């Protein structure tokens, strides 16, 4: 299968005072296109650092990571911004919607930075919101929406740039169990439609909802296994 992400011997060092922290200590893995996988681990395991590198927010100290043909370590700041805009769709734990703007405008935001024509941008944003089940709430502000609805807006926003990779950081962390399951179902549906989805979480139950779990601890991968299909599609 065609690999979307290929990571080889990734190392990320941080300087914390006099101490050098090895946030990533030789991580290698590969994720094919169309995958639905979770990266799990307790805090300090290096999963957030890995996510930042996967999302083009950070670059590795050494090792190589190629995503959709882009060698992340070789990109400069400006190209990284373009990479985040075109290749990555971010979903955050706390939604990160702009409070003063409507659902529609929030979804338009990445397309503004891509320089998409306003009319086209509005149409696509409306389409995406309809796709995540919010076709009736285009003009609502985030404060007028429930947590689950806000996360759906955030997912629609992540899809706006037709990204090669949907990258979600604890997407159910701020939601109740039931709403969280609905959001995971949405990811599963999007994956069935062809999207590559990577969830980063500390919650093994959430990870079990995906088709593959990569387990991390102390900056290394300590487990990588497929999940049973029943769990993935419950």
């Amino acid at each position, binding site marked *: 299968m065609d690999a979307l992400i290929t990571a080889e011997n990734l190392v990320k060092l941080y300087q914390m005072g006099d101490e050098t922290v090895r946030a990533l200590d030789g991580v290698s893995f590969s994720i094919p296109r169309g995958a639905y996988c979770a990266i799990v681990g307790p805090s300090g395991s290096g999963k957030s650092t890995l996510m*930042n590198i996967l*999302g083009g*927010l*950070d670059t590795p100290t050494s090792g190589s990571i190629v995503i959709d043909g882009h060698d992340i370590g070789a990109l400069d*700041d*400006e190209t990284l*911004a*373009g990479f*985040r*805009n*075109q290749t990555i769709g*971010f979903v*955050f734990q706390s939604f*990160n919607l*702009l409070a*003063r*703007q409507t659902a529609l405008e929030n979804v338009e*935001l*990445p397309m*503004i*930075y*891509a*320089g998409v024509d*306003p009319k086209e941008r509005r149409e696509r944003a409306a389409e995406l919101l309809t796709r995540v089940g919010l076709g009736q709430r285009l003009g609502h502000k985030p404060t007028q929406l429930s947590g689950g609805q806000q996360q759906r807006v955030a997912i629609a*926003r992540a899809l706006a*740039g037709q990204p090669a990779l949907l990258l979600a950081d604890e997407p159910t962390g701020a939601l109740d169990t039931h709403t969280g399951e609905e959001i995971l179902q949405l990811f599963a549906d999007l994956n069935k439609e062809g999207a590559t989805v990577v969830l980063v979480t500390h919650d093994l139950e959430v990870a079990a909802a995906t088709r593959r779990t990569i387990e991390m601890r102390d900056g290394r991968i300590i487990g990588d296994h497929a999940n049973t299909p029943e769990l993935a599609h419950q």
Partner: protein
Amino acid sequence: MMRPADLVASATRALQANPLRSALTALGVIIGVSSVVAMVALGSGAQQQVQNSINSLGSNLLIVVPGAAQAGGVRMAVGGGGRDSLTLSDVDAISQIDGVVAVAPSQRGVAQIVANGLNWNTQVQGVTPAYLTARDWTVASGRMFDDTEERQARKEVLLGQTVVDNLFPNMDPVGQNIRISGGTYQVIGVLAAKGQTGFQDQDDIVLAPLTTVKRRISGRNGRADTVSQISVKAASENDLDRIQEDVTTLLRQRHHTAEGDDDFTVQNLASIAQTAQQTTQVFTYLLGGISAVSLLVGGIGIMNIMLVSVTERTREIGLRKALGARQADILRQFGLEAVTLSIAGGIIGLLLGVLGAWLMTSLFNLPLVIAPTNAALAIAFSGLVGVVFGAYPAWRAARLDPIEALRRE
């Protein structure tokens, strides 16, 4: 690449989010620009006023008076013994100088005038017909006496507008008689009004033939051919300095005086005007400069609020970066917010400044002078303030690390 329209929309949106804060921030620039505009307009008005006053005395004019001058040629003191130094033969000699259009001797007298049952104290100038040309007077009604009438010492006068207003409030004075120092004179004309010079009312004047005034009004016991002033009009402003030197040289020869020991003074109104201009100009710069300090304070206010805004919106900046905003996009967005604030402040300040200038100039009875270039400059300068003081906060925003920024609460 972000579209310019989206950039503007995003900046105005951010400013509208906090209308009171935006207004207060702009207020600094508003006060700065409006005070600069008002102060400069006030200074320019004063300058214009001085210029008008001096122009109304007569253009391209040299005035020769008896007595030595103080240094600079502006202030002059009447030296002892020089009071009768100017004579009619000096006038004839000066009129031979190349480039001189008119030379007009005059003798000043002060007299009580009675007419129509009213009386009025004014200056009576004994002049020759050339005086009208030399001093830019025009006759509004009636006529001027001619050279023959002047030599014959006719008892004919022309009245200035102020004299007419006081002695003939409701009637045409031409053809009427007035009494000056016991003699009866006929009014043959009225002078067109010139207005105030700021120091004195130029229209408070009576013109009479020079010979008449010498014999009957000024009551001087001295020589019959002396005059109190000679007005010399040059053909063009360019000749003025040269003619001033020629007149000085000529009179030194005629009076046998040496430099520093002159018994006469040649005043150049253009140079007096220039001195006055320079004085008021310094005044304008001073006022403008002081006001510019408040504009600077306004700029610092913008920087302060923009820094607060960047701190408050750290998370938003992180999000925008995660979604693909480049450093240049963030820099432009925050820079544009600052510039929008300062230019909006500049426009409002300009309007208020013009209003303030209008109020002050009407209060002080000055002409309202607002050069379009100054107005444009005020707007441009406020824009510059936005760029300068918005640059640092915008740079701080653009340089934020998105990971750190997203982690911030």
